[in-house]
């Protein structure tokens, strides 16, 4: 799977353009490639348990960087240090651990601020 452009549902905003069809687990095409996403669509995707979509011209890393850039750097540093301590026995290069680490770090930052 190509990660570029595939972003989490929570980061998708109305007005973004789909790159690929969104298909439910049982094979139903929910939205077509090329379609512009509306608020209503987002609600439907949530109901169907869709967690990600391939969006035109979007880079996952860019969105994540933007999110962390919004955090006060001191809090960010404290949260990162704490998360690193908890995760010290894991391989942060693995995609699952990497995503879990990011989410835990964001939550720690939220609780700190």
């Amino acid at each position, binding site marked *: 799977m190509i990660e570029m452009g595939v972003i989490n549902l*929570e980061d998708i905003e109305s007005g973004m353009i789909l790159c690929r069809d969104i298909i439910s687990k049982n094979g139903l095409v929910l939205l077509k490639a090329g379609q512009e996403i509306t608020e209503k669509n987002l609600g439907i995707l949530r109901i169907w348990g869709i967690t990600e979509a391939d969006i035109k011209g979007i880079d996952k890393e860019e969105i994540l960087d933007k999110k962390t850039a919004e955090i006060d750097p001191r809090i960010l540093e404290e949260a990162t240090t704490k998360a690193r301590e*908890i995760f010290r026995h894991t391989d942060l290069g693995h995609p699952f651990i990497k995503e879990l680490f990011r989410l835990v770090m964001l939550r720690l930052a939220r609780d700190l601020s």
Partner: protein
Amino acid sequence: MGYRLRELLESYDEISSLPMIFYRISEAVNDPRASMADIGKIISDDPGLTVRLLRVVNSAFYGFPSKIGTITQALVIIGTRQLCDLALGTSVITLFKGIPEDLVTMESFWRHSITCGIAAETLAAYRRETNLERFFVAGMIHDIGRLVIYKKMSQEAQEMLLRCKSSGALLFLGEREAIGFDHATLGSTLLRSWNLPPGIVEAVAFHHQPREAKHYPIETAVVHVADIIANAIQSGSSGECFVPPLDEGVWEILGLSTSILSSTLDHLERHVNDMAHSILIER
């Protein structure tokens, strides 16, 4: 080593046997002549269990639109096997009393267990597994061996916990070093003696080395990953201070996208408190 493990469990009268009620339920579930009403009657005979089960099935986690008022209703809506699994998972809590809370508070221990249970059930749901309760129960009791260690060897356990905390080591490795086996082996031996379903026993036995699970690799992988999530968000603790390492290739076995993690963590944040309240009250 084998001798010591057996000795630990045998000398533990209180937990070496499950409450009678559970045997009666399993017997009825496996008896083709027993009706749903018979099973309902057996559960309803135990007021504590009835209250606990009704609280769980009425929690926001299940999200049924109307209130489930009786065990018979719960059996129809949730299913006999599933309700039996829930009865088991929640009655195990009542077995462990008098554990010194200076090691780990029981509140914190069960919170970690419930978090792991809900995480396991959520991962299984994303995989479109059926009978999700067995995943919940396996997650809920995965660290039960630790309670035996805390109760039977509180002195050694305390030293072990402190040593791991100060040196930054993983507790299950500390256990293997200090007593020759870990809580997973101990817990699964206990669960096997209770005749719990083999899928649950194997998932508990190998939740720190999931690739060794030969018969139920998915159940085991789910509990392994759920435990990592529960430790990462530090929702309660069974004594471990760190996120256990992910066994190679295990995340890949599940065939899930990492994008499910964000909503899984939100889901846990919403439901753990509620479920902990449902299960832990009047324990």
